[in-house]
């Protein structure tokens, strides 16, 4: 049965729907919010179901759940920091509150904790000795080592990436997803976001104090909490995106040929690096695409309305709907769907590398230029490649160490 045919009682038997009602699973929340937008005629049924759910579960909703969970997470954070770094060290630091308040359970709750854990391989046994000298020495040594590594890390990141924007940001939080994984969490202003594979997000320490600024490398889907007084700014290597409260997807991987920002709801103002005094305003269902190679003018997308006076390598285009189910191609990754639309094999390979955590080599130049269109939900790499083989002839071989070699079909 399709969700479109669900009545309130059917929705309430669905686990993901209940998780959406309580707001305890960001993926379920994303899914159902988008679903409701796409099916306004079912709004009343959903509302009925939500009210019934609240009546039956003891009147708990997302706002109570979020408040309780945040209280829980900040206690846990404090407890774990005290455990790993020792009380003395903790007290010498300035107090701080958690910036990342919610994460998917499969990840470490706090970067700093994972770090601490690595520094004290024997912490489980040393803890029992109480305040013994050895334990103290370990704690101080560990804390000092951690501080030095952290400082070096921040130094490399700032120097290496030439972060622009205010230089006055003293320290920042890092959140990253490895290849082959995605992460969802909520920032302390209520903004929900999901990071695609191989992405890094840097959040200013002062986030949500006077301004909301983050730096993104890779791809993220944002549901930005509305706060007119404090605009939310996403910085990437090639553009700055200023939003007030909206749903959007920003994609800026260093290896990709293009950077793009797709807007689903609300409005955003984009400034392109190198042309900071011009703001380009995007409307819902539009995206801006910037080519990262100055020489090649993007011919990838059918331009709908070129911006007057804009650089040659910037395009505004409509969002792409997948033919099969009219879902949005730009954000299909948030539903665990890989999608290509007349995309070069070379660019598909870059996506596959991140998605499946493999490295792909082409034996032939010609194969790189093959174009494919398709969507894949929860498929394995061989399943995807087998499907692609149906439309164009090529051969592939998956070797050890996650190496994939693709070459022309010879016969």
């Amino acid at each position, binding site marked *: 049965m399709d969700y479109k045919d669900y*009545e*309130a*009682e*059917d929705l*309430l*038997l669905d*686990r*993901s729907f*209940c*998780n959406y009602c*309580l707001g*305890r*699973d960001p*993926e*379920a929340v994303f*899914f159902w919010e988008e679903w*409701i*937008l*796409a099916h*306004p*005629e079912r*709004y*009343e049924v959903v*509302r*009925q179901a939500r*009210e*019934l*759910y609240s*009546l*039956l*579960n*003891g*009147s*708990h909703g997302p706002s*109570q*759940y979020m408040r*309780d*969970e945040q*209280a*829980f*997470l900040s*206690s*846990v954070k404090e*407890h*774990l920091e005290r*455990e790993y770094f020792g009380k003395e060290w903790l007290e010498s630091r300035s107090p701080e509150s958690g910036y990342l308040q919610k*994460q*998917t*359970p*499969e*990840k*470490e*709750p706090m970067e700093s*904790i994972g770090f601490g854990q690595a520094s004290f391989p024997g912490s*489980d046994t040393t803890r029992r000795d109480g305040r013994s000298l050895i334990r103290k020495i370990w704690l101080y040594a560990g804390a000092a080592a951690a501080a030095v590594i952290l400082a070096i890390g921040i130094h490399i990141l700032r120097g290496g990436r030439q972060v622009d924007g205010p230089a006055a940001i003293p320290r920042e939080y890092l959140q990253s997803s490895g290849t082959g994984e995605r992460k969802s969490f909520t920032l302390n202003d209520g903004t929900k976001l999901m990071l695609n594979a191989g992405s890094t997000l840097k959040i200013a320490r002062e986030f949500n104090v006077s301004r909301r600024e983050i730096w993104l490398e890779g791809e993220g889907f944002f549901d930005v909490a509305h706060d007119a007084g404090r605009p939310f700014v996403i910085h990437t290597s090639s553009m700055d995106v200023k939003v007030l409260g909206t749903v959007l997807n920003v994609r800026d991987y260093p290896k990709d040929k293009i950077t793009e920002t797709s807007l689903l*709801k609300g409005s955003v103002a984009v400034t392109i690096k190198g042309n900071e005094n011009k703001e380009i305003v995007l*409307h*819902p*269902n539009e995206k801006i695409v910037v080519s990262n190679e100055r020489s090649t003018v993007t011919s990838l997308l059918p331009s709908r309305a070129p911006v007057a006076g804009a650089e040659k390598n910037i395009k505004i285009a409509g969002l792409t709907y997948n033919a099969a189910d009219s879902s949005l191609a730009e954000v299909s990754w948030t539903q665990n769907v890989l999608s290509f639309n007349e995309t070069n094999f070379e660019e598909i390979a870059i996506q596959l590398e991140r998605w499946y955590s493999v490295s792909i080599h082409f034996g032939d130049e010609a194969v790189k230029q093959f174009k494919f269109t398709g969507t894949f939900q929860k498929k394995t790499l061989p399943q995807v490649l087998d499907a692609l083989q149906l439309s164009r002839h090529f051969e592939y071989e998956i070797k050890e160490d996650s190496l994939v070699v693709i070459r022309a079909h010879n016969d």
Partner: protein
Amino acid sequence: MLVDPSHNEIWAQLREGNSDALLALYNKYYTGLINYGLRLSGDRVLTNDCITQVLLRLWDKRSELPVVTNPRSYLLSCLRNELFGELRAIHSRVAGGKGFMRATDQEEPSYEEYIIRLQTNKTLKERLMMAMGELSSREKELLQLKFFEDLSYDEIAARCQITKRTAYNIIHAALKILKRNLAGKYSVDPLSYHLMIALVLFVFLQ
């Protein structure tokens, strides 16, 4: 959707010292624990603090934790102890503390009474009372297990010694009856309903 490792798997992760298991336990048992504590104490903040304390205490003792076949009931009894301890402490500080009286009051409201009492809207309160009155005690019991205690269908089936399919069907039927009897509450006047649809459409088509 949400990764849902089995109960015992999360427990095993906790014993191995994986701090992610704390959030996983909190997330999984939140509804059941908070409702249990709220019904005992009537204090949400206190209940949430106690849940947090219980989980942190388990974390501190993780290397000595027993293998538990049913983490839910283990956590519930931990919460009960924690809550009583706290309430007793509050009671001794503030003579005649209301919370302790409520907790020691053996007459816990039934599920039905409790959720009706929570409603502030008088019409809704009456409708809910009538709607719940239409349900059999079996149906009410299963609604409580499913939505108030937040059990999975597997747990409900095991607890009530029925098949998952039967549990599912009983809950489905009960929800249908409730929905029908509460319907008056939901009949929005047609104008505002159409306005709402138009608004949503407008936002979406923008």
